[in-house]
């Protein structure tokens, strides 16, 4: 069956280009010629999902197989959702406009806790039973992958299975099982035997007096599900023909991952720990992929992606080569995620567009003391020196990211942010007067976000600071940092609390999420639709206090809701990092000294 989208329907919704498909590099296969039909779902608007690299990788991996057809589906915006319900149009894929429930697998890429209500909305619109336990032989298998699988427990019961870690290899092992068919129970049993596949149905959390005391593992399921790690990224040459968005995406660019993982070990960072060890691509492969991408898409920008691109061993070489080759084609190389040091300024200079857009750095904490707690090796001198270099090179727009509510934070650390910002403004002004810096007056953007403790980090035991304390600190920053030169922006405290609840949560939260969804919560990450009131009502309805989840402090020996998922980094190491953090002791980068996190020998030959 194919869905028809009447002309007047598309004319009546915002950005109808979200729903029509037909993009360059999209792949349409004959469903009768394949064995497995896979719907790749991203639970957010088209513009957001199309900026996600992981989706493009899986799309090409799957479509590269003769026996599989992969199509994409994104979350319809609320106006389209309303129309689809009224007209009884089921959730459909972009490529062939087939109802998603006719596919064999519906796979969600879950990257952010505030997307959970969209997952529910998409399952609901698709006409697929929300809970895995309620699905029958005719329903597709519903699975999920992505960074939220580090702790997927609040939504785990929605999925028949989840995939932990890198998807490129395991997705083939999964399809190989699906190709052989079998009844649902049998297929899930076989999938559970694949390294990296988590079948929530095989694990039962047990509570005593409200506290999680055990995660009982049923017969036939592994004690812990190990994260999949692809060691040789040079063998993964995808995506080289990503689908080119029809309408403007959040990131309209071609992207090459230069490495995965991170050696820095910043203690708040889930991505850094959840993607260890560092696995680099060789410069030849980066160059080759970069050129192929530009050829296949025509994008104006080629981004070199990683968690900390200044740490890529070959960054100077690759930047220089690519910038040179691509300048003639009108393509800029961009380097997001630069560290605040001299090399970064040199690199940024080498790839600069003639119009200098701003430079972005993340000091994260206002004082050197707090930076040592989070393991960010960055002194105030480093900050001033880097800023000076940037200003001399002509950059007059700077963006700085900070967090508030970090463990051990006091008012002095907030003062630290204020002092730092004032000092930067003062230095630029003085430098301009002296003729040291050319160009326009400084435009400094400071973005402040509440810290959210996440699974698989040394801070996973810490609670999030209470909302009223965070709000008071924000008020202080607002009062004491003068507007004008400095543009201050703050991440919403309540939505950060919800993020913390979900990030540290367990399966008892699912009824809350469902309740919030029934009340109309969608696109929670979008300010225009965010409603804390509705969420509070949902929590109250279910008798759950969000503060108990966001603020709770775990003891060292507590069972954590995600203990049965093995990211590879051992708990002892994380606890010792926590202790070092509280002791304000720096742990050097993996490149300089191995701290024994547990992943030392996983990818032989790799550094860090």
């Amino acid at each position, binding site marked *: 069956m194919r869905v028809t989208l*009447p*002309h*007047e329907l*598309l*004319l009546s919704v915002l950005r*109808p*280009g979200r*729903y*029509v*498909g*037909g*993009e*360059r590099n999209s792949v349409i296969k004959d469903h009768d010629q394949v064995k497995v039909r896979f719907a790749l779902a991203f639970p957010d608007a088209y513009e957001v999902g199309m900026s996600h690299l992981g989706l493009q990788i899986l799309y090409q991996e799957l479509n590269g197989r003769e026996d599989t057809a992969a199509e994409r589906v994104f979350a319809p915006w609320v106006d389209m959702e309303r129309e689809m319900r009224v007209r009884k149009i089921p959730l459909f894929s972009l490529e062939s406009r087939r109802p998603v429930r006719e596919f064999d697998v519906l796979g969600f890429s879950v990257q952010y806790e505030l997307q959970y209500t969209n997952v529910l909305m998409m399952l609901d619109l698709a006409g697929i039973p929300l809970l895995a336990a309620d699905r029958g032989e005719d329903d597709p298998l519903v699975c999920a992958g992505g960074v939220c699988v580090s702790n997927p427990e609040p939504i785990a019961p929605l999925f028949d299975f989840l995939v932990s870690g890198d998807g490129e290899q395991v997705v083939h092992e999964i399809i190989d099982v699906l190709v052989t068919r079998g009844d649902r129970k049998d297929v899930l049993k076989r999938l559970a035997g694949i390294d990296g596949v988590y079948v929530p149905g095989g694990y039962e959390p047990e509570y005593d007096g409200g506290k999680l005391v055990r995660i009982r593992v049923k017969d036939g399921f592994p004690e812990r599900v190990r994260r999949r790690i692809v060691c040789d990224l040079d063998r993964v040459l995808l995506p080289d023909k990503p689908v*080119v968005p*029809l*309408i*403007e995406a959040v990131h*309209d660019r071609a992207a090459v991952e230069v490495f995965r993982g991170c050696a820095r070990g910043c203690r708040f960072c889930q991505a850094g720990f959840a993607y260890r060890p560092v696995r680099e691509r060789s410069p030849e492969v980066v160059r080759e992929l970069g050129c192929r991408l*530009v*050829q*296949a*898409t*025509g*994008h*104006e920008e080629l981004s070199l992606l990683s968690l900390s691109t200044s740490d890529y061993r070959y960054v100077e070489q690759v930047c220089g080569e690519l910038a040179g080759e691509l300048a003639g*084609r*009108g*393509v800029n190389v961009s380097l997001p995620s630069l560290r605040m040091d001299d090399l970064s300024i040199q690199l940024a200079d080498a790839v600069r567009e*003639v*119009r200098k857009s701003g430079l972005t750095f993340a000091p994260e904490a206002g004082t050197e003391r707090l930076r040592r707690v989070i393991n960010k090796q960055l002194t105030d001198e480093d900050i001033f020196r880097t800023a000076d270099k940037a200003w001399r090179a002509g950059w007059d727009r700077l963006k700085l990211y900070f967090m508030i509510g970090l463990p051990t934070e006091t008012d002095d650390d907030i003062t630290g942010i204020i002092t730092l910002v004032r000092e930067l403004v003062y230095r630029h002004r003085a430098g301009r007067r002296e003729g040291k810096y050319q160009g326009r007056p400084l435009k400094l953007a400071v973005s402040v976000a509440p810290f959210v403790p996440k699974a698989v980090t040394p801070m996973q035991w810490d609670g999030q600071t209470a909302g009223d304390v965070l709000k008071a600190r924000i008020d202080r920053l607002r009062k004491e940092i003068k507007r004008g030169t400095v543009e201050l922006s703050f991440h919403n405290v309540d939505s950060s609390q919800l993020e913390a609840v979900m990030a540290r949560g367990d399966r008892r939260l699912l009824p809350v999420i469902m309740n919030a969804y029934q009340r109309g919560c969608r696109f929670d990450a979008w300010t225009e639709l965010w409603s804390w009131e509705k969420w509070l009502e949902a929590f109250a309805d279910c008798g759950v206090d969000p503060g108990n989840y966001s603020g709770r402090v775990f003891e060292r020996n507590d069972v954590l809701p995600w203990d049965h998922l093995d990211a590879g980094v051992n708990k002892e190491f994380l606890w010792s990092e926590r202790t070092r953090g509280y002791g304000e002791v720096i742990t050097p980068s993996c490149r300089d000294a191995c701290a024994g996190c547990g992943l030392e020998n996983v990818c032989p030959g790799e550094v860090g």
Partner: protein
Amino acid sequence: MRIRMQITKDGDLRYVSHLDFVRMVERALRCSGVPVAYSEGYNPRPKIGYSPALPVGVSSETEFVDVWLSQRRDPKVIAGQVGWCLPKGAEVLGAREVQERAPALTAVVTNAGYELRIKVCGLVRQELEEAIAKLCDGSDFSGRVSIQFFDQDCVVLKLVVPAGSRRGPKPKEVMAEILSGLDVSRVLDAPVIHRTELFVGGEENPPRLLTIDL
């Protein structure tokens, strides 16, 4: 060298905004390796000009794009290369060289021709003719509407209005005016609007069709 191409914006591309269409064309130029010239100064932009923007929902076979090249090329070859890089719905109908200093597309276009296709059921022709007459007799209506095709299930109207360098009513507005004079139950879906021609001409000359000599 300056090359003018005629490109369609058809099929589902009608739902894409003009800005997104512009991005699509720029990408196709980059993807095909065409040596586009860039402007000078602090923020070099590719030197490309476009015919007047289409509203979302309207398709067209008359999207004209002027591209300044930094090296001479055969326009036919450019047409082929760019066409290959464009998505479904955007086809390069032709390309030719134009004078470097010729005025911009938005400056020379004076009128636009549209085809308005309406799905109907049991509509009375006279009712339609009266609605059109009422619109055209209105003192501030500056275009021409005629019935190109009429049958039981489908009506096609031809509309020519000032555009580009001259201000004129939007085809959607014209359509709404006409529909307001009809029995609404006879109209089955939103009208499908397709731009079929662009006309150029100074004040003194009668408007002529803008073409590439396909």
